[in-house]
């Protein structure tokens, strides 16, 4: 298990196992969000490729 230091006001101490688990859960969630965003970008690009549009043209048409 990784170790972390946490600070409560002015006191720095080692994270408890529960705190470590929470830190790592949140890190995993960020990784999942990044992977989901990448998947959405790939899917969007696939659609643009089928339509023969550039990203800039898509933004002009769709506003995003």
């Amino acid at each position, binding site marked *: 298990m990784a170790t*972390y*230091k*946490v*600070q*409560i*006001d*002015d006191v*720095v101490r080692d*994270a408890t196992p529960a*705190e470590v688990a*929470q*830190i790592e*859960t*949140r*890190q995993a*969630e*960020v990784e999942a*969000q990044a992977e989901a*965003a990448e998947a959405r970008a790939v899917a969007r690009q696939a659609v643009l490729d089928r339509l023969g549009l550039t990203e800039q043209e898509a933004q002009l048409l769709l506003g*995003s």
Partner: protein
Amino acid sequence: MGVPSGYTSAQVVQAVPTGINSALVLISSTTIGSAVASVTVSSAFSSTYDNYKIIVSGGVASTDSFLKLTLGATATGYYYFGVYGSANWGSTVSGDGAANTTFWSSGSASANSLNANIELIAPNLAKNTSYTTIYSNTRTGGTHIMYGGYLTDTTQYTAFTLTTNSGTITGGTIRVYGYANS
């Protein structure tokens, strides 16, 4: 802002005479320790103020990352959305957000600075808390980010925690201000 005639300083006032209300009052100033993954400010919010500003400045991170904001012990129900861009991208911006997640994205942690300008609405009221933040990753090509969001519960919070997504943070200061209610 210029200094008005008859005044010697344009600084925020931290102590004012009885009968005069300061609009923005410093509640706490916490110096971030060495190589910590998170910092909790335990007595930040109270019934004295409805709304708050949190400023993070100075300090460094061990790796390019970002700061997550959580309230009390709440680990779910955070919603946020915003836009970000980079000077290197010209006028192009991207959207980003998350629903029912475990934190609010709230600040930058890079190798040359920590920064966040967070506004919290009603964290100590029995209402949904909402937030906005503006921050910039100050590394070369870093992104500039604006987020807003809310928390689905109505817990009356007194504490918040900033946690780096990866690596650690060292130094810098977390200042909490309250907006006077009247």
